[in-house]
């Protein structure tokens, strides 16, 4: 369980820049929570505050019930992968993990286990200097898994991974959540979150824009539409007209209807004996919904609380 309450971070003296602005949210165990936002939205800063690396200007955050630094064995509580590399390139993968393991008294077998899990056993003796971006990322994830933590906080974990690695991360995150762990993962890849995350926390300019499930976010974002093909399209449009419904038509006989669902359209058509040749719901992609939301936040800089309702 991760809790943030009124979390705020400002940088700079004279002309302070607010990276995180009064952010409150909870990340619950058992699900994968996606942490989304455009560049500069404050995702990495928030994660650093959760880990005690940056001190909040105001507000507070807890992981597993207490401040990160208050845990006597923090690596068993939280495993973290930060966006910036946190590995000395002159050390081998094995020794990097062993140095971290020593701080908690983890046995060598634990280091070997995470090297195996991340597929790095064969290169464990090589210095990190020669690692590809993807191998470096795997080593960062190995370090995060080292303490078999109750919470995972991963900043852009799929960065630099090949498709096989992306699939591996996706399954790993889901398996960790299925085991009852708390998983918070930031990403700028909406399509990736659509298949990985169950829950979404969306931020823009340091403010919370939405705290919702993936499913509800897409539904509530109001961009879902239904395509209808009917010989009596004009009549059907009249029947469906309402304050929340918008109907557009690109070609005669074809309607693009927003604000209502396929079921309602189908029943209305049946009740008035309007023949339908096609009735196709198009759910908005997560990508589209996210773009709409953050586009608004960039234009008006006000949180869209409606999306979380």
């Amino acid at each position: 369980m991760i809790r943030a309450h009124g979390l705020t971070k400002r940088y700079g003296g004279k002309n302070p820049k607010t990276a995180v602005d009064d952010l409150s949210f909870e990340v619950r165990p058992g699900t994968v929570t996606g942490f989304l936002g455009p560049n500069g939205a404050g995702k990495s800063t928030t994660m650093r505050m959760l880990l005690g690396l940056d001190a909040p200007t105001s507000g507070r955050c807890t992981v597993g019930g207490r401040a990160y630094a208050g845990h006597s064995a923090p690596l068993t509580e939280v495993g973290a992968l930060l966006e910036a590399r946190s590995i000395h390139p002159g050390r081998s993968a094995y020794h990097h993990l062993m140095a971290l393991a020593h701080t908690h008294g983890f046995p060598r077998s634990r280091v070997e286990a995470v090297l195996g899990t991340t597929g790095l056993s064969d290169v464990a003796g090589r210095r990190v200097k020669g690692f590809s971006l993807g191998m470096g990322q795997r080593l960062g994830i190995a370090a995060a898994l080292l303490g078999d933590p109750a919470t995972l906080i991963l900043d852009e974990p799929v960065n630099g991974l090949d498709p096989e690695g992306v699939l591996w991360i996706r399954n790993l995150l889901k398996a960790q959540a299925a085991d009852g762990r708390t998983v918070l993962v930031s990403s700028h890849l909406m399509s990736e979150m659509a298949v990985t995350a169950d829950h979404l926390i969306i931020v823009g300019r340091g403010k919370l824009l939405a705290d919702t499930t993936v499913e509800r976010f897409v539904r509530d974002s109001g961009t879902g539409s239904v395509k209808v093909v009917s010989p009596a399209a004009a009549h059907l449009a009249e029947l469906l007209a309402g304050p929340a419904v918008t109907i557009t038509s690109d070609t005669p006989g074809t309607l693009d209807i927003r604000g209502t669902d396929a079921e309602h359209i189908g029943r209305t058509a049946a009740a008035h004996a309007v023949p339908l040749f096609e009735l196709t719901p198009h759910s908005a992609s997560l990508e589209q919904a996210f773009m709409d939301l953050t586009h608004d936040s960039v234009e008006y800089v006000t949180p869209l609380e409606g999306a979380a309702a």
Partner: protein
Amino acid sequence: MTTDTRTPPAPAPARSPYRVTTARVLRSEWHKLWTLRTTWITLIAAVALVLSVGITMGSTYDGDDSDVDTVVFVLFGTQLSQICFAVLGILVTAGEYATGMIRASLTAVPRRRPVLWCKTAVFATVAFTLSLVTNIVTFLVAQIWLSGTDKELSLTDSGVLGALTGSAAAITLLSLIALGMGALLRSVPGGIGAFVGAVLVLPEVIGTLPLDAVDTAVKYFPAQASASLGSLTRVEDTVSAGTGLLTLALWAAAILVAASALLKRRDV
């Protein structure tokens, strides 16, 4: 809240054997130090410089340099090894910032201060032990050539072991100042620049000022305070070995305490 003492306590959940302790952080820092090539390179260079300069001084001695005492004479190489140890001290702290390793270190030990103190303890132990052994070996090897000259001395002669130890202590404390500067500045070039500038060059420059007060103050600068530590006799115009050791220790402590306070406060 009340406690019922009659019923036995419910079986506590199996306590995890894993937690951060000072001994474990020491072990981690020890592991970190020895798993980098730069450590081996700087330490081997430091030993080789002292030994080779000592052998050169001993084997080429023709009786001219009698105004320098024997220990200072055979340990001229420590002026070079001092740079190696200081650079390693800076790498131990500032090197973690340069590579980002500090984020991993402080995530594992979020109380932060134990990381700096354990780095200091591990580095000081290694620097002092290695310097002392190198000094003794160099002294003994140089004596192969110096026996029979006016610089013939044995380890058991009065003051010899003390001077060899004092030299190792001076090297260690000066390197701890460098380690502290690396932690304060969080930059390897910055740390090296600050050490060379503030510790090695600055006192030489301001020492040229024609003011008595400045002359006195300069004696208590770290490098100047260490002058008599590695010597059999008190070097002219410097503080005594005991005062020098105390002065150096205070310098190192002050810088490390400042570094520790900032480490706790600053964002990483």
